[in-house]
């Protein structure tokens, strides 16, 4: 009886044992990578030939923007798994990850704005890149809101999963907006066909920072997953206790 009730979380439980083992490594990697990345970005990398010292915003802006996209894509993939295979962990992952994605998106927006003021001469323009990132931010907010707009958690998870899948159209638009349209935002510097257009002395810190952001994201997602699973278990036990 009890085992059957827990069947739903048997799989996550196994996963969480793995995650629990990975957690300290993740934390360590985050600390080391951030230390190295910040040192490289702030002290050890040269100013830009045009932008001067302002270029250092890049070491936050670009990893944040990448993470915003990456987290969204991962949520969409998890949503597909949740809808098609009803994988219990997928639904939990989407719930755990979307606030983090929203924060990365906000970070990209804010740093972009801060960078735009000195470089472009404006905080904000409605060009295709900026607008589509704003849309991404709203999609994240909608996803989060939809998740807990229902008294029934399962229902919220399904609705949010559908939204996440619908919103996937926006991702290629963000990525390629700079190529498809005349935007004020620059085209890709790193992920482009004929190799990075960033000098290695600036590319290295950028990549280290990107790694730091990634491991930080993983760390927070694992923590949130753990608390969510614990909370669901507690609520279930409480409900069963109240029933008896």
């Amino acid at each position, binding site marked *: *009886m009890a085992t*059957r*009730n827990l*069947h*739903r979380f048997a799989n996550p439980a196994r996963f969480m044992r793995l995650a629990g083992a990975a957690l300290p490594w993740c934390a360590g990697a985050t600390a080391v990578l951030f230390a190295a990345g910040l040192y490289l970005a702030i002290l050890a990398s040269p100013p830009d030939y045009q932008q001067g010292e302002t270029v250092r915003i890049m070491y936050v802006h670009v990893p944040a923007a990448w993470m915003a996209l990456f987290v969204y894509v991962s949520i969409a993939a998890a949503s597909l798994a949740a809808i098609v295979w009803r994988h219990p962990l997928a639904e939990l992952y989407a719930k755990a990850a979307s606030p983090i994605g929203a924060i990365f998106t906000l970070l990209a927006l804010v740093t972009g704005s801060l960078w735009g003021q000195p470089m472009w001469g404006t905080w904000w323009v409605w060009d295709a890149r900026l607008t589509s990132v704003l849309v991404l931010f709203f999609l994240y907010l909608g996803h989060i809101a939809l998740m807990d707009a229902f*008294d*029934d958690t*399962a229902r919220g998870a399904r609705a949010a999963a559908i939204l996440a899948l619908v919103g996937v159209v926006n991702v290629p638009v963000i990525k390629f907006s700079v190529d498809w349209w005349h935007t004020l935002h620059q085209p890709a510097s790193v992920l482009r066909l004929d190799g990075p257009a960033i000098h290695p002395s600036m590319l290295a810190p950028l990549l280290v920072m990107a790694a730091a952001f990634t491991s930080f994201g993983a760390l927070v997602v694992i923590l949130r997953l753990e608390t969510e699973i614990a909370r669901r278990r507690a*609520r*279930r036990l*409480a*409900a*069963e*206790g*109240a*029933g*008896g």
Partner: protein
Amino acid sequence: MSEFEGTDVSVPRGERLVLANLRFCLARGEVLVLRGANGAGKSTLLRVMAGLVRPQSGTVMWRGRGIFAEADAHRARLRYLGHNDGLKAALTARENLEFAASLDESASLDKTSSFNESGSLDKISLGVVEDALARWGLARIAETPTRWLSAGQRRRTALARLSLAPRALWLLDEPASVLDAEGVERLSEAVGVHAASGGIAVVAAHGAVALRGAREMTIVTPEGGTAGASP
């Protein structure tokens, strides 16, 4: 032989399991009356049987094949009536039934249909609708928008959908609740005919029911998170 069966069906609602490890098993021509206290989970079970609610665990099968895997086929073989009548208040009883009849037609053309003699689609469904109206005593109020009908008249209109086309499985949620004695009579006769022709009916009900030869199953309100059914 069991035609329609469920094993280990568990359904959570809110934070707790409303149905836990419930099983049922129905042969052709069988009528099952669901009993249980208010909130025991009768309506929930009917929605599971209809394929509207997917249980958290357990299987529901028709002739050995999962109803969720073959959702289209399952829908085409059942008729469901919930607590709500599913009528449009601005349409008359006849219009509501005509609409219900045309919802079926795509199915009745695919399958062997009981009224494939001749005539255009519209004519077929018109005859069927006329028939259903008469069979449920609605002929005199067929042209009144259902908004103005009495509760029992509206329930009869909803029930008249049962007479539109033969379906193998009837799922009825307290169908007799606002019917008068004559209406209950018509209902039990309809269920009797349905069962006699090999159909299965599952009927949630409180109080006495006049369904001949019906088997009863009581859904027990789960205590301490455990639910079961006593057949």
